[in-house]
């Protein structure tokens, strides 16, 4: 009786292990096929957004690792100017919105001025209200601005305070990072 019970437990365990093994192989196989495609997909999306902000410039370099981390900032890119001028920068920044993260890509010129903002994700915002932060008329309001703690220099979307504030916060965090990047660059130049 005792042996029979132990055998049952062993059989249950082994069969569960077998099922898990089959599934693990399947997922690994699918991942193997899709991982490069997904990476390509992400790169393409980033490229498109960078092109949208700096028309023409597509050559960029990820400099996130060399920048001091700021809360909410996911990545910093250095965008090479196509006309041979000074480099521009792009910051991928996010802040909590009404229903999840609002993710923005913010483009800066070499003086730290905002060149353009593009929304990477705002799917948690209310359709027809908070989603309006995706509209160009709102995003264009950021152009030419610098760090703005209160967000008073900007016309928010009426009825969508939370979403607008999230966008402003994400942009402000990006500005903080830019300050650090630019001051580091200047001190480097002085040292040279």
């Amino acid at each position: 009786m005792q042996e029979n019970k132990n055998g049952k437990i062993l059989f249950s365990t082994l069969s569960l292990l077998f099922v898990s093994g089959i599934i693990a192989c399947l997922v690994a196989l699918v991942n193997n096929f899709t991982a490069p495609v997904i990476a390509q997909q992400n790169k393409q999306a980033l490229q498109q957004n960078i092109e949208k902000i700096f028309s023409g410039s597509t050559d960029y370099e990820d400099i996130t690792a060399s920048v001091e981390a700021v809360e909410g900032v996911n990545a910093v890119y250095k965008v090479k100017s196509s006309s041979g001028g000074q480099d521009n920068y792009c910051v991928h920044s996010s802040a909590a919105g009404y229903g999840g993260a609002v993710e923005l890509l913010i483009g800066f010129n070499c003086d730290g001025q905002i060149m353009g903002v593009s929304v990477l994700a705002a799917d948690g915002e209310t359709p027809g209200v908070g989603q309006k932060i995706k509209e160009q008329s709102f995003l264009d309001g950021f152009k030419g601005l610098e760090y703005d703690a209160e967000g008073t220099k900007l016309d928010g979307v009426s009825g969508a305070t939370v979403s607008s504030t999230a966008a402003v916060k994400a942009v402000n965090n990006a500005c903080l990072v830019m300050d650090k990047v630019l001051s580091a660059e200047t001190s480097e130049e002085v040292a040279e």
Partner: protein
Amino acid sequence: MKRRGIAWFAKEGLLKNNPVLVQLLGLCSVLAVSTTMTNALGMGAAATVVLICSNLLISLLRRLIPEQVRIAAYIVVISGFVTAVQLIIKAYLPAIDKSLGIFIPLIVVNCIVLARAEAFASKNGPVASILDGVFMGLGYTAALLCVSFIREFFGSGSLFGIKVLGESYPGILMLTMPAGAFLCLACVVAAVRYFSARKGDK
């Protein structure tokens, strides 16, 4: 084992035992993704693929899986297929992935899939289980499309993201929000109940 034709599975999955409208399973995902018909179609297709694959595998393994660990085994199988489907959607349909977001991984806990595994695939052969998966999936998709048609058409005046009622249509904002989803789904379920009850009277 009874011999059952495709017609039986079709009637069972689409009408008599429609997973959403009759069994009231998986309502969370129906409420959440029925804002546009594109979302509904994407979600329906994803869930159908998972249903077919998990039904097939569970049916094949049904003699091997001991009763005590069957639920754990089913969940492993289902979550494996969901992960695979999610990776494929991410790679080839990034727009759908963005709009469905968290609801694709949540197919794992969609009770339709587990319910079919427990109630059908674990007791029937692979062919019957595939048919059951196909038509239960189609029934789910049909219910989703039904609710999302009403919500998208009247809520924002468009179908599959294309404006059909003209730019001047103001849209019923409430229908695009969660509260509208509850009301809309309730009306659809009530209508289905009404008509099936009347048919029963005759």
